[in-house]
């Protein structure tokens, strides 16, 4: 079974704090993704990575950065957390064969982040 794990299920941070969300997958997938999920908006892509040290911006990258130093690990960083970043954050991974477009993504359980 593919397993994608996220470091925290629930997180409460203060405005202005630097926040790290960690994601680890055990299937040797090349592609990894960070989404945020908000009611009525579905999932929106923040960043994705198609290889170690490689990254591409998604649809809503502002206020976020990412790091991928090892193939199995993809970190999302909120440089200075703000209340509008309160959300559910979902990590996913997929194979890269033929770009990975036709292959399903496997999701972690999510981290519910509250910024006060």
């Amino acid at each position: 079974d593919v397993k994608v794990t996220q470091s925290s299920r629930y997180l409460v941070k203060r405005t202005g704090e630097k926040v790290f969300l960690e994601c680890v997958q055990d299937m040797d997938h090349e592609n990894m993704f960070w989404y945020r999920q908000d009611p009525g908006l579905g999932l929106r892509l923040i960043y994705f990575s198609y290889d170690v040290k490689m990254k591409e911006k998604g649809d809503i990258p502002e206020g976020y950065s990412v790091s991928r130093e090892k193939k199995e690990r993809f970190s999302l960083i909120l440089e200075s957390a703000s209340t509008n970043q309160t959300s559910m954050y979902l990590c996913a991974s997929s194979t890269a064969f033929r770009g990975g477009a036709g292959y399903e993504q496997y999701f972690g359980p999510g981290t519910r982040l509250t910024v006060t």
Partner: protein
Amino acid sequence: AQSVAQPEDQVNVAEGNPLTVKCTYSVSGNPYLFWYVQYPNRGLQFLLKYITGDNLVKGSYGFEAEFNKSQTSFHLKKPSALVSDSALYFCAVNKDTGRRALTFGSGTRLQVQP
């Protein structure tokens, strides 16, 4: 650009009745279409996908979806709903070239009443 529309925020159906959750898409090129389900406080689980071939795709838990190119739709169906099917359902699209990440719809909450 690629996009997905799920026109219904919520679908209510009685247990044992057939269910349909609607999805339409917009993409240039050949679409890859996916359905995911999310149970409370859980991540998304893959249900099924359409890549090519037969327009009727069968997936997990008795779900199926029909790809209709002329109507650009990919509706999720099940012949007989169970209370345990109550969850949030997401449709997603990608295309055969370019971007690797999926574009998701806004989600449809399915409520199956006993």
